[in-house]
């Protein structure tokens, strides 16, 4: 056996889709530029050649239309994967994706499921301005009936996307333009990662850092910094926020007594606030301080590089929160 190969996040996504399309003829991909152009971000490179235009479909710029089409297809037994070039563009498709997909099974009394995967870039891509930098998990995680995966690395991206495609419920799969080129170890062999299983990616004793998606990397940087001060951080990558693996976080906080939640979305009514609230509930007698939270600033995303940097969660802010949470300020 050779050493485990390293591939990019975008390649991991493509492998997941391609493998599932080979495995199940019902699976197909649609979205803007996914076919002829090989994907706006080259995620679907080569897929048109392999699967043909019936299964890799270029759509017009009409999110509401093709999201609705996919939901209809899913209701009728197909397994569509919809690529949003950016989750920011999904806002115009709010009615089908929030008002139809997640409620279909319930409202039809179990007659129609809706096994559709919506995926695309989420969060600030880098100077895309206020309207194109949405972290939609802040809004969408509020809705019952959907699953939300926000993988932070190629390995999780592949394993979670395969699970998403095989599942029978609508899944919002949130990727990040800033991580598409990130490389990571991904084995050749097939594997799936179940939803709702957080991963402790660094163990520690003094403070629990809980995050998902891109900020997980900032948490690791901060944890490294804190180690120099003698503060030992345990970092947990939640991987999916719906379902939320509260158990892993609770076990950690019961050990550390301190918790910092890092969530790239805005703080008011966010997955971060939900997680913090659940930790307060389950770990009330174990907490030495209130659960600290690091979010994007409560302002529209700035365009200027330096402001955008400062707007987003970063290692410095996380480190500051850890010091405060552990009374080391």
């Amino acid at each position, binding site marked *: 056996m050779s050493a485990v190969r390293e591939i990019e996040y975008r390649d991991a996504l493509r492998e997941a889709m391609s493998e599932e399309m080979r495995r199940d003829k019902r699976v197909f991909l649609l979205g803007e530029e996914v076919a002829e152009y090989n994907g706006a971000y080259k995620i679907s490179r080569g897929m048109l050649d392999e699967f043909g235009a019936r299964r890799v479909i270029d759509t017009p710029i009409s999110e509401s239309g093709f999201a609705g089409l996919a939901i209809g297809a899913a209701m009728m037994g197909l397994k569509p994967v919809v690529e949003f070039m950016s989750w920011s563009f999904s806002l115009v498709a709010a009615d089908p994706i929030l008002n139809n997909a997640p409620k279909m099974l319930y409202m039809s009394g179990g007659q129609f499921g809706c096994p559709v995967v919506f995926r695309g870039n989420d969060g600030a891509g880098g100077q895309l301005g206020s309207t194109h930098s949405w972290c939609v998990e802040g809004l969408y995680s509020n809705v019952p009936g959907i699953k939300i995966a926000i993988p932070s690395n190629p390995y999780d991206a592949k394993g979670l996307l395969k699970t998403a495609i095989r599942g029978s419920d609508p899944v919002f799969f949130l990727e990040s333009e800033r991580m598409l080129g990130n490389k990571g170890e991904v084995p050749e062999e097939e594997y799936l990662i179940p939803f709702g299983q957080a991963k402790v990616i660094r163990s520690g004793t003094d403070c629990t850092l809980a995050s998902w998606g891109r900020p997980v990397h900032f948490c690791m940087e901060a944890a490294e910094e804190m180690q120099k001060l003698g503060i030992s951080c345990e970092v947990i990558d939640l991987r999916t926020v719906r379902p939320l693996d509260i158990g892993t976080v609770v076990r950690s906080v019961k050990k550390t*007594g301190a918790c910092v939640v890092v969530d790239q979305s805005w*703080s*008011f009514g966010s997955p971060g606030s939900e997680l913090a609230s659940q930790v307060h509930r389950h770990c*009330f*007698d*174990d*907490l*030495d*301080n*209130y659960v*600290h*939270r*690091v*979010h994007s*600033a*409560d*302002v*529209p995303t*700035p365009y200027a590089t*330096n*402001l955008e*940097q*400062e*707007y987003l969660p970063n290692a*410095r*802010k996380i*480190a*500051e*929160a850890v*010091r*405060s949470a552990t*009374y*080391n*300020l």
Partner: protein
Amino acid sequence: MPINVTMPRLSDTMEQGTVVKWHVKVGDKVASGQVIADIETDKATMEQAVFDEGIIAKLVCPEGKQVKVGDVIAVLAEDGESVSDAASSSGAAPATRGAASAAPAANAAAAPSATSTAARTIVADVHATDVTSGDRMRVSPLARRMASEMGVELSQVQGSGPGGRVVKRDVLLAAENRSAAVPATRGAQTAANDLVAATPSMIPAAAASAGALVHGAQSIEVPVSNMRGIIAKRLVESKQQIPHYQVTMKFSMDAVLALRGSLNEQLASMEVKLSVNDFIVRACALAMAKNPFFNASWAGDRILLHQQVNVGVAIALPEEKGGGLVVGVVKDANLKSLRQISGEIRSLGEKARTKGLSMDEMSGATFTISNLGMFGVDNFTAIINPPNSAILACGAALEQPVVRNHQLVVGWEMAATLSLDHRVIDGAMASKYLQSLKQFVEGPTMLLV
């Protein structure tokens, strides 16, 4: 630019201070000269005024927390400046200072926040509000649970978190101190030896553990205030370094009581009420002027004779203010009338018990009087208040059988005991001073001129 309000140096020996109470909260407008906090120094609790006007943007130092002189305790936003910007831009605790300044863009990022009410980060926001709330004992849930599991009495744990919150490490420390104290009983003698050998600055800590050692696990720990710490340190220094001895004399108080009665009757309409102590202060001051070595300090290789007669008066503080005592000073007491002395002592006492004395009002005593007469004490000895060379401990004026003109009669008598620094004052000199004092007390009309 935001203005940092720092922990002031309120005395020469002050290195740290504690904000006992904030009189302002975030968002309050303050004017130059306005008192914003009560600050406990190594000597006393004093009012702290601001020198600038503006709006309180952040209270950096929580009540009860001791910080170093020069550390930022609060941040003021200047006129027209945003309070949240000022709060986030400066006044961070020392550990965060470097981090905060590394990101000058921080303020700018908050600028476009037209609708934003939340602070830039949750962390910064919450700190400001931590400081302002009430007096309830704060304990983190974890600390509470651990204390109950480990049998640590929370009321005896001093909190190190924001606003004095008791946190995990405080409970662990308390438990550790307790377990360290229990097995130490076998070595009580050793510990006592250590105590003697300890340097003065180590005394409070050593004394504290010695206390726990005597009383065992059942003892109750009382946290030591700044003032208690400084009383302990200074008096141990005094007792260890000054060769104390005592000389006692009895004074007939008939004449002074008669004079006091008659003066008070005449001065009643002016709301003047002279106390026995006022007469003693004046008498001591006049006797000092006649006996210059009683107005002196030992300075290692020489003796300093002070050219100003300043009499310190020990003032006990009420228990609800944390107890302890301070010394208020009547300056130039030999040049002041009884009525002046009386007025000064009264206002010093009131201020000490309410707002606290200023450093000036507590500085410069060259001799000290401690009077427990009002508590019915017959006689006692006091510890010299360095750098004084003597202290007079006065008991109560008591009605008792006395011999006057070979007759047994009933008269008023008071015993007073001088504690003296033998390096400066010998026994004969002490007797001579007491003779002078006796002349003034027993012939009190001399005190009027």
